[in-house]
């Protein structure tokens, strides 16, 4: 093979494994699911492709509560993560000194434990007479019938906890990349600490926040583990419905239709969000 030909083929060779992987494990299931969502029939009689778009209508009619709830939970947990995560990322980036990587490792340490196990440990912590509420009820600070478990707070809290590193890490990367001289320049140009933060640090960290929101809002909204472990009957999320339709009811068309509906919703939401934040700006700074 000539040198030039080899050079020309190298990028394709490099992308080949990943491309094959995505084709087999992403594109094929997507097509299968899309087709499933338009089929009719039952597990016993088998399914046939009939352009049965009623699954979509039925899904939206029957489960719009769960969809709206999922979006609200996803948004709430994302907001909580920004509020908790930003100071953490800021502190590690600017005050972490030589131990930055130690702090980042500490942040990630809980995530060496399985996702489900961590969620179950929250169940212990939050149970009605558990480690947290038990003593508080004992000394009379909380009424006897007070509960957190099986409320939206528990589910949102669990979601916020479980996805926090995916929020902190991108924000950290964006903050860490800010040249300290730029902050000095702001100070030199009469900006107070607060103004420096508002006019320089915050705008420069937005690409990180953007990435963090993408990486947490999407999985949080479609999550079903937190709702099933920490929630109750009134906190069912769309992920639980889909799981139920697939594995228990075995109504594959409805499950597939709901999955696609959720995906479409998230995509529209993300594009609207990117628009609102000015993606061009965000990506421009990110590409720096």
């Amino acid at each position: 093979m000539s040198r030039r030909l080899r050079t020309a083929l190298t990028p394709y060779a490099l992308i080949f494994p990943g491309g094959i992987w995505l084709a087999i494990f992403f594109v094929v299931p997507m097509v299968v699911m899309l087709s499933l969502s338009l089929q009719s029939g039952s597990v016993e009689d088998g399914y046939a492709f009939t352009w049965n778009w009623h699954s979509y209508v039925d899904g939206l009619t029957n489960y719009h509560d769960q969809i709206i709830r999922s979006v609200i939970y996803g948004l709430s947990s994302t907001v909580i993560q920004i509020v908790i995560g930003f100071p953490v990322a800021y502190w590690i980036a600017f005050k972490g000194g030589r131990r930055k990587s130690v702090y980042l490792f500490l942040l990630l340490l809980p995530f060496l434990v399985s996702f489900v196990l961590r969620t179950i440990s929250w169940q212990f912590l939050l149970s009605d007479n558990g480690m947290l509420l038990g003593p508080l009820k004992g000394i009379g600070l909380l009424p006897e019938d007070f509960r957190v478990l099986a409320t939206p707070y528990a589910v949102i809290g669990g979601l916020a906890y479980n996805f926090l590193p995916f929020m902190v890490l991108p924000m950290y990367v964006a903050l860490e990349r800010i040249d300290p001289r730029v902050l000095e320049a702001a100070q030199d140009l009469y900006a107070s600490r607060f103004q420096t933060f508002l006019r320089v640090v915050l705008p420069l960290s937005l690409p990180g926040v953007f990435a963090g929101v993408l990486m947490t809002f999407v999985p949080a909204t479609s999550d079903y583990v937190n709702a099933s472990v920490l929630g109750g009957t009134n906190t069912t999320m769309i992920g639980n419905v889909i799981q139920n339709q697939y594995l228990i009811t075995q109504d594959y068309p409805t499950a597939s239709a709901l999955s696609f509906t959720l995906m479409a919703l998230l995509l529209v939401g993300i594009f609207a969000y990117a628009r609102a934040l000015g993606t061009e700006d965000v990506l421009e700074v990110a590409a720096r």
Partner: protein
Amino acid sequence: MTDIQAGTGAVVAAAPVSADVPAIELDSVVKDYVSHGEVVQAVKGVSLSIAEGEFFSLLGPSGCGKTTTMRMIAGFEEPTRGSVRLRGEDVTNVPPNRRDVNMVFQSYALFPHMSVWENVAFGLKRKKVPADEIKRRVGDILEVVDLVGREKRRPREMSGGQQQRVALARALVNRPRALLLDEPLGALDLKLRQAMQIELKRIQRDVGITFVYVTHDQNEALTMSDRIAVMNDGLVEQLADPREIYERPATKFVAGFIGTSNLLSGTVRQVTGATAVLSFGAGDQVMVPADGTAGVGDTVDLTVRPEKITISTEQPAGDLSIVRGTVAEVVYLGTYNSYTVVLADGADITVFQQNAHDSTITAGRGDTVWLSWQPRHSYALR
């Protein structure tokens, strides 16, 4: 020849522009750092008085404390001891955002998320200057730095030289008491750097603002400055105008750091009036202004610039300093020839010979030559 003291330039050189109150005064400023549990003294006691409208340079090798000194003027570092005054007002503990000086950073430190216009207007906005005045002043200063029409560009879309000018405009637009420049041309290539040197000097003359310029580049300092403070190891070695710094280096360090110089040491043979005669070898005689401290038999260090020396194959006559040596190397360098001559005591002397008329080489390798210069061109060093 009237000033017979070696090294007096360190304190006596006067500011060229007289103003009632100096723009910047440093009074015995010391800065200690703690690094790895050890106290490191970056600045060991610097006193300076910089006049209004002066182009003042802090020149020295990296680690000499020049940047720390500047950062104390800007307010980014607080002196461990000593005080900083701006126009007579003590600002030693005033934070940078409340000091009326602005800085041009080495890496420019432009705000990457803002346009040129927003970058330049940043300081005025923080000072709550009315919008129409901001518009006018930003427009004016962009004209001064020749960036009209590029207001909407982002720093990243501009060349190094343009970014440099944005940084300059961003600081100058505030009309600060003094502009501090931290090696601002360091990142530019040679051609652009030389063009910017002239440009900076022009802008400084136009706006009439005091410039404090930190650099390790002697050419930059010599080209632009009214006065230069040569720093080494946390102290000012010499403070004088460029001519004096070059022609009359006060210390060995300054002589070695600025330009090419020859360092010699000889023994005092006799002192006649204001002249001390040093001897090196047979037939050699070197005269330097006597400072009254060295007597017969003492060893004295002296310096002489390569271009002041005349090289000849015959012993020159007259009231000159003369040494004899052997040519070790001759290099043709276009505008001049460079000779390396070894003296009897093993010292190397560099001699530049201008190719003014014919590019003739006076002597070749191994030839015995006489080097001579006017006694006023060599100085005893501290």
